[in-house]
């Protein structure tokens, strides 16, 4: 299991409150610690409309990277007249280096299941799915076991918690493509189709899984829902930044140590990096890669940037997969950016041409830089191309795929020059 980093005592825990349990699938122990209390209140005391209002008051935003207000999705799905609705919990965790979603699922499956059930009750969905990485067989098994136990105890099932409404939750293991982290792609996979994003609008809340209104949330978003119902929206808005309150999981990797930590939104990056421990003597931070393979490369003087959706976007990074990687001082930034850009290009699904061809051209351009053979027009071309790719983007992958290169050129321009100087440009064979 992934190590959970120790955070200062003043930082609240919402998502990992029950993470210390000896057996996370032990339903009785989880119930004693507060599990399914939120579902009980939702069904017995609040009812659907009041629950949605409560989530709206808490200003809970999606943790999947986009930061979209959760309650707006529920209201949008409720506004559509449809025979069926679905709730999908996205726990795929597309970034292989980030363990945030997986940690939550393995440490406290009941939080995600309860959150999914509350959302399903509020929007009137009878069927819900939790999508997870098929490679993590332990998590798939654990979730299935937890869902079975909750169903046997009557929290889920045809008459969930005496509500008279059917709430069934199922695990859907998916694998084989990075793009599955994108919500419309995930829905395609659940429908058994080629994983390519859909034009929005109509948003999935209007036409999603099997053309029915579908609420897709990251597992962290759903795991925060029971806590909000239990403790009230005011307690939630008091935590973290005012625009996107609450806590978020960060998967930290530093030369000193790595693990997953729950941090209040708006925490400065400096404090997050500190959680990994003291850097070994003589080592310095060269850059911080925030947001996974399509993340931004931030210089050490931006360590005071607040970790929330808007501030990171402004700095040229994004919350993304929740991964924060400290890049050591000996690293060749251009090469690292090359690996990231190539990753984003290979994993592109190929639906839109600017993404399919544009990201490839960017990868070639970084390749030329690495080899010290870049052309004088390359910097301008990269900026133009990147702007075009972003402007024509169909999905978030396309919108963010150029971020490593763009942030790298913005903050580490001298590195790009250095690598040109290191290997003087060779004249290419005329019949190249």
């Amino acid at each position, binding site marked *: 299991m992934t190590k959970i980093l120790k955070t200062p005592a003043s930082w609240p825990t919402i998502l990992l409150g029950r993470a210390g349990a000896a057996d996370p699938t032990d339903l009785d122990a989880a119930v004693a610690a507060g599990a399914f209390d939120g579902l009980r209140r939702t069904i017995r005391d609040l009812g659907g409309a009041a629950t949605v209002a409560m989530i709206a008051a808490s200003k809970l935003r999606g943790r999947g990277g986009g930061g979209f207000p959760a309650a707006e999705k529920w209201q949008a799905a409720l506004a559509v007249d449809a025979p069926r609705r679905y709730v999908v919990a996205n726990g795929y965790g597309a970034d292989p280096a980030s363990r945030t979603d997986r940690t939550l699922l393995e440490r406290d499956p009941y939080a995600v299941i309860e959150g999914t059930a509350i959302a399903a009750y509020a929007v009137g969905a009878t069927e819900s799915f939790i999508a997870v990485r098929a490679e993590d067989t332990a998590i798939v098994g654990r979730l299935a076991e937890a869902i079975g136990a909750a169903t046997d105890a009557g929290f889920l099932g045809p008459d969930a918690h005496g509500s008279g409404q059917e709430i069934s939750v199922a695990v859907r293991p998916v694998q084989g*493509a990075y793009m599955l982290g994108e919500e419309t792609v995930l829905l395609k996979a659940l429908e058994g189709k080629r994983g390519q994003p859909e034009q929005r609008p109509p948003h999935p809340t209007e036409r999603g899984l099997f053309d029915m209104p579908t609420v897709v949330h990251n597992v962290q978003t759903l795991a925060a829902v029971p806590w909000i119902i239990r403790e009230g929206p005011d307690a939630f808005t008091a935590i973290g930044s005012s625009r996107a309150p609450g806590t978020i999981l960060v998967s930290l990797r530093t030369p000193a140590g790595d693990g997953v930590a729950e941090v209040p939104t708006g925490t400065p990056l400096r404090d997050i990096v500190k959680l990994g421990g003291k850097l070994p003597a003589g080592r310095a931070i060269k850059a911080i890669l925030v947001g996974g393979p399509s993340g931004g490369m931030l210089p050490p003087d931006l360590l005071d940037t607040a970790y929330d959706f808007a501030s990171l976007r402004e700095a040229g990074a994004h919350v993304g997969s929740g991964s924060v990687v400290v890049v050591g001082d000996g*690293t060749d930034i251009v090469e690292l950016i090359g690996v990231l850009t190539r990753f984003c290009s*290979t994993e592109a699904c*190929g639906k839109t041409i600017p993404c399919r061809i544009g990201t490839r051209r960017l990868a070639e351009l970084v390749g030329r830089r690495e080899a010290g053979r870049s052309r004088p027009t390359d910097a301008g071309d990269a900026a133009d191309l990147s702007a075009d790719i972003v402007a024509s983007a169909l999905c978030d992958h396309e919108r963010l795929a150029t971020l490593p290169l763009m942030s790298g050129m913005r903050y580490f321009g001298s590195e790009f020059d250095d690598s040109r100087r290191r290997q003087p440009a060779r004249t290419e064979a005329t019949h190249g």
Partner: protein
Amino acid sequence: MSLIPGLGLAKGMALTLRRFFEPKVTIMYPEERLDVTPKFRGRLQLLYDEWGTLKCETCFQCAQACPIECIDMGGMDTRGRYHVHWGAPETYGERREESALRRSGRPVPDPAYRPFGPIDLGALDRILEEHDHDPADLLPILEETQEAYGYLPVAALKRISHVTGAGYAMIYGTASYYGHLRFEPATAEDQARAVADHRPPEARYLAALGSALDGDGRSAKAARA
């Protein structure tokens, strides 16, 4: 008319000269090839109906519509009287002698074409039964089929299409998208990959991150290779 005689000519020659010394981007195609993206869907194939007859009825519309005339085709007319074809006669004549596959420069036939041969469909039928012949369950069906046969034989995909009613192109589109599904028996490399749990792009990315942590940029280069 410019004021200085010959200025236009000089300008033109200057441009020519400048271009002359710029690096060339053209590559010598058959000898030298750019990497084709793994998601490239370039496999054309003719489909058979459930009686094993070619579905293509030689209507020539595809060849007619092809803007760059890369499709040419020939066949007997419906009453078996004359040989008809569409496309430049010289290409057609050449193609009659040599198979299109060989002409494409591939040293061996694409193994994906081979499993047209019959396979024992019993295991597949049981899988389909379990999923209620529901095309919405396509991904689990494909995964279980691969588990049963070791790969996805073309005959199995055709059977799935026939039984579930989902189009073959859609099934092939789904199967070719996901990195863990394959159309050929697993090689030793595939097996090693299954153990490593990460698809090659993911492994390269993780290796680069690992070396960034160590601050040792050299291994990023190794990860790329």
